[in-house]
């Protein structure tokens, strides 16, 4: 009896693994590309001809972490890919951590994707593996977060084709202007951000500070990092508010930081503190309607997703190089336009279809 139980256990484990594998197959037919790398150098031209003859490209798209911003990006990217007849493998690191993301990229390199679109978790740590991809014949475009210093015309990162992302500094400035208006050009501003050294949120903060510093009666009084965890954002914001009497506005530099910070304000019942958010998730828009947020800034992750796919496709098809730096825009939601039918498309989607 016990023997059969053991065998049953092993069998069910094996079946579970195989089922997961089969259930998740997106395409029925699998082209077996030549996996041998023993082709001699003389066969370069022959190899290039065979790859050009394949009609279906496969792209690898690696997000930063699990986040509605990236889910929205993924939906748009998939839509563009369906239009162009491309297959995309999406991968999401379980944590915003280079050590988790690098093996994912390496696995994609080994499965010989035709192109890599990447949101690097660490601007320096991902350069070696991105270079590896490039050396293996896989070109790279970064979205949202850049590699190195964002300047792909020279240096260690010059192999990257393009970076596509928000103009974070400008968007930060827009945030600053909006906050200044909300507070009537008077008051103290507290910022909740994600991780120090993360280029895009740093620029948002700098943009905002740049604007706030122009107003003599306004001040940036605090900047904390919540490690992209909304519950931490909530705790830290609460602690800050309770320790500092004069906080007039609280804003978060991305989805989770804004979410957590605003919840702290709501739970403390401090209706005198205004809130603003970067990233228009359904939660943020709901809170905008309720009056908790006064302003929500929507980046255009969908644009980043579809533009990168299109640029990659064009490059592979006929070698057209995309612009080395593409700045996607942003939209501002306030209580005035939150119900506008035209604005609805800019709200991020929570779950992928």
């Amino acid at each position: 009896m016990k023997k059969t139980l053991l065998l049953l256990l092993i069998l069910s484990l094996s079946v579970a693994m195989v089922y997961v594998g089969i259930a998740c197959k997106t395409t029925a037919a699998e082209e077996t590309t030549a996996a041998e790398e023993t082709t001699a150098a003389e066969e370069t031209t022959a190899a290039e001809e065979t790859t050009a003859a394949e009609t279906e490209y496969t792209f690898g798209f690696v997000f930063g972490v699990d986040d509605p911003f990236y889910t929205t990006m993924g939906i748009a990217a998939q839509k563009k890919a369906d239009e162009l007849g491309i297959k995309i493998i999406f991968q999401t690191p379980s944590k915003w951590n280079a050590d988790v993301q690098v093996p994912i990229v390496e696995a994609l390199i080994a499965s010989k994707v035709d192109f890599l679109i990447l949101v690097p978790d660490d601007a320096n740590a991902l350069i070696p593996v991105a270079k590896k991809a490039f050396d293996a014949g896989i070109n790279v475009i970064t979205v949202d977060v850049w590699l190195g210093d964002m300047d792909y015309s020279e240096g260690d990162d010059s192999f990257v084709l393009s970076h596509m992302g928000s103009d974070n500094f400008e968007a930060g400035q827009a945030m600053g202007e909006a906050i200044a208006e909300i507070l009537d050009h008077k008051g103290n501003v507290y910022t909740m951000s994600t991780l120090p050294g993360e280029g895009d949120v740093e620029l948002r903060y700098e943009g905002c500070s740049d604007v706030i510093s122009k107003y003599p009666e306004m001040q940036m009084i605090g900047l904390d990092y919540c490690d992209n965890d909304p519950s931490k954002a909530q705790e830290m914001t609460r602690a800050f508010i309770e320790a500092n009497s004069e906080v007039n506005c609280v804003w978060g530099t991305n989805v989770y930081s804004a979410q957590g910070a605003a919840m702290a304000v709501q739970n403390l019942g401090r209706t005198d503190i205004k809130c603003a958010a970067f990233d228009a998730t359904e939660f943020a828009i709901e809170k905008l309607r309720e009056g908790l947020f006064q302003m929500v800034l929507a980046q255009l992750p969908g644009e980043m997703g579809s533009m990168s796919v299109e640029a990659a496709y064009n490059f592979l098809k006929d070698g057209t190089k995309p612009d080395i730096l593409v700045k996607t825009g942003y939209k501002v939601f306030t209580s005035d336009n939150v119900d506008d039918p035209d604005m609805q498309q800019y709200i991020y989607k929570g779950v992928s279809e």
Partner: protein
Amino acid sequence: MEETKNKVDFKSKMQKLWGLAFLIFLVIVYSIFGKGFFSYSSLQNILLASSILLIIAIGETFVMITGGIDLSVAFTMGLSTVVAAMTMKAMNQMGINAVIIVIVGFVVGIIVCIIPGFLNGLIITKFGIPPIIVTLGMYLIARGVALLLSGGFPIGKQPSLLGKIGNGYLLYYLGSKGFFWGIPPVVAQDLKRYIIQIIPYPVIFLIIILLLSHFILSRTKFGLYTYLIGGNVEAARRAGVNVNMHLTKIYILSSIFAGLAGMIYCFRYTSGTAIAGEARLFDAIAAVVIGGASITGGYGKLIPGTLIGGLTIAVLQTGLVSMGVSTYYQFLAVGIVIILAVVIDKQIPLIYGKR
């Protein structure tokens, strides 16, 4: 008599082999259903991807055999990368010779680990506080120190030699040009993809450390004492083992392994950050458990044990990517494997011992 002997043989064979059999089964499944999984470079990548994980797991194995656990390794690793990277960055800016910088960085990264390890051992032995609590406290302390030192920022601007070693291979082969040792052949960009890379340096490092550790654990007095303490502390004490001293050494050893893993991180990613090891602690403990070590101590092996455990996790994680499967399934997969691994390990003696 004949019958019992055969049953005993089969049982111990089963215990040793089921993990390996399962691993081979996984590799077969992924090779069939995954794209590019069964290629030389992909399998090599799995070893590479598991290198950091395995080194932490080796240290953790020693600790768990004594019946303890070390949670602090997650941030001892980060601390070591931060200290090493800061040192190397400063030296780089002073224009010191790259080879010297790399050696100094490595040494500094390892030496700084002795402190949290020593403190762990001291508090656990002198005050008799359970290891899980002490190392949890140290996890937070190391995290704080690493964050304070680095300001939370990842530290870059490292000498380029660092990345060359971390991402380098022992041997390169290019069809038309033959073999190259240590340094890749310089060829035109579009020829680069045909270069076959053989044995990454971090994997060589891993193999050396693994073999050394296995030797220490299975063939030396140090290893013997480790098992004795794990099996029965009192008996060990009465046998004349200086338990306090030995345990302290074990925790220092564990932290040093975290430092070694940290050094691989630095070399591969040319960067140091406080959160470097955060994602690996859990996987390392899982690797030890899947490998058959007992949580209560006294039993466990590095080869095959922890080695197979670590490889299984790396294969599961990599394989799912090569199948184009969402990373969410990874959590499910590893979780199921851990539970089944422990259940199977318990069932085998129960089933085969009872007749």
